[in-house]
């Protein structure tokens, strides 16, 4: 092939690289700046805590990445997250295993329903999962009698380890995230399922005409996303020791933001889990830096984070321009 095409190809790949790791770049930058500015920032203590707190969003964002790569979106994750936390706390009375499985089962069921509506009935993911958002939240309030009951996890339950345990000083949630992202990366980049996700996101009709099983793949990815949201909620319940009813509101937007900042295109067909992880970390680091700087009142903070979001996304988009 001609030199022209060759350079074109290479610059294409390079752009891909930058796009995937643009978030990482910004992250490193902030870490360095933050570290120089505040001696209480780059401490193992602070970062350790941040990592644990970030792990729940990380787990959710993993599923969101896959959904978005397939050209869809899942708005229900925030509610499913909260619902699963409540279910876990409730089920913990029957032992750790129940506390783990009950919420996952319910979450998966919700995912399945959404998947069928999107994959089979060909409804718009946005509206279907918006329904899921309302439904799961309603169900949560129903089983907590309008949110008046908070179920507690028995203080001695082994289930708590899932959120509070540590291995060699590293929080259990963090370890889970590491494992899940290794798995997730492999699934997305190295399995036929992953390939199908990219294909569907890149051109659904084409994927269908190429004889790929579009429907089942879509169903699968929504089940996956909901189950991961469920797992996040379960881990959270284990960390909090109770099924808190007021969490997860608007969480879907954070997840989407993290995914997009991570360089995954909302139009589908391109993305990476490593980028998403960087995106999640970025959100939490920014939040902590705003705290470290201090002095902003809460309203100003909102303005600042809005501005930061724009900046990051614009940077990100400009870096990946050559891609589109």
């Amino acid at each position, binding site marked *: 092939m001609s030199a022209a095409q060759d350079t074109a190809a290479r610059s294409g790949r390079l752009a891909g690289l930058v796009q995937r790791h643009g978030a990482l770049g910004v992250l490193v930058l902030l870490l360095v700046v933050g570290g120089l500015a505040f001696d209480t920032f780059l401490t193992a203590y602070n970062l350790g805590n941040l990592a644990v707190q970030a792990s729940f969003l990380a787990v959710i964002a993993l599923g969101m990445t896959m959904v978005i790569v397939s050209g869809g979106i899942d708005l229900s994750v925030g509610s499913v997250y909260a619902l699963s936390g409540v279910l876990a706390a409730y089920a913990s009375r029957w032992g750790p295993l129940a506390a783990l499985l009950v919420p996952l089962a319910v979450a998966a069921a919700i995912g399945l329903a959404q998947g069928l509506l999107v994959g089979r009935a060909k409804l*718009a993911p946005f*509206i279907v999962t*918006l329904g899921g958002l309302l*439904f799961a939240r*309603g169900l949560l309030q129903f089983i907590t009698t309008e949110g008046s009951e908070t179920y507690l996890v028995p203080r001695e339950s082994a289930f708590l380890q899932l959120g509070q345990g540590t291995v060699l000083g590293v929080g259990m949630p963090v370890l889970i995230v590491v494992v899940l992202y290794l798995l997730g990366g492999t699934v997305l980049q190295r399995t036929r399922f992953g390939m199908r996700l990219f294909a569907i996101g890149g051109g659904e009709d084409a994927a269908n005409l190429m004889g790929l099983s579009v429907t089942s793949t879509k169903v699968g990815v929504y089940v996956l996303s909901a189950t991961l949201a469920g797992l996040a909620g379960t881990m959270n319940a284990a960390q909090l020791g109770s099924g808190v009813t007021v969490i997860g509101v608007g969480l879907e937007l954070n997840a989407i*933001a993290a995914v997009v900042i991570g360089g995954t295109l909302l139009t589908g067909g391109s993305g990476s889990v490593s980028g998403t992880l960087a995106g999640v970390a970025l959100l939490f680091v920014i939040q902590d830096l705003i705290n470290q700087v201090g002095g902003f009142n809460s309203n100003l903070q909102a303005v600042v984070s*809005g501005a930061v979001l724009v900046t990051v996304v*614009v940077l990100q988009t400009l870096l990946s321009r050559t891609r589109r």
Partner: protein
Amino acid sequence: MRPGSRAHVVGLARDYGVYVALGLLVLVNLVLTPNFLSVDNLRTQAVQVVPVLVVALGMALVIGTKGVDLSVGSVMALAAAVLPLYLGYGPVLAVVICLAVGAAAGVLNGSLVAFVGVQPIVATLALLVGGRGLALVISGGQLREVRNPEVRELGSGSVLGVPNTVLVAVVLVVVVALLVGRTTFGRQLVAVGGNPKAAEFAGLPVRRVLVGVYVISGVLAAVAGVLATARLGASDPSRLGELVELSAITAVVVGGTPLTGGRVRVLGTVAGAVLMQLITATLIKNDVPASVAQMAQALIIVAAVLVQRERGAA
């Protein structure tokens, strides 16, 4: 296709699904809800639907271009926060300034989408987060009573029994309907949504159209903010327009405008908004607990889009 044939019926259901659902809900209410047909009640529903409807009109245009505008709620808040500041210079100027703020928000969103190429959801997410914050900074987080008589009149007055806010909404519906159906801008908008690349190849001013659409959405959101504030008699930036983006999007989609762009159904959007309003009303009037209400809402929404889905010919 033969009238009466199954395909024919399905086709109708698809095109008029939202009206069918609306009809059913009215019937349900006639049975369940005491004095549902009373003029007062109808007026109440009409008045309450106005803000969502006005926002939804703009949203429909944005969605027509394959986009979405999450910032509308915050823009409502911004308008509400700005209004009292300028009432001193007379209500007209104050309102104009509010609309200008809405337009500015639109320019920001539109530029991010059209020139930088940021994905609409995220582009407008930034303003969703920052916009309300700004509104609160402006207002010091305080709710302010609005005592200006003209504004109050706008909110609570009526002409021949028709509330002013409703009149405004009706006018806007007509304007937007004409805009979509009868103007070059409207047709270009739909083309851009249908196939951006082809639109560019056809020499359409794609970017101008995109920015224009977000500006319209911003301005309409500001109008909604003003109307809501006038009605409430107070400017409440901290709570006004919370989650309105979701209600608006739902109204648009339930009204038959596909999120995939390339088509805009204005009347459908009106019907969609009214449908959502009636659902809420029905649930409240029959004192359904919040939990059940939310689940019911979810199911009805999905059902409504299920009726009118495109049958999947690849």
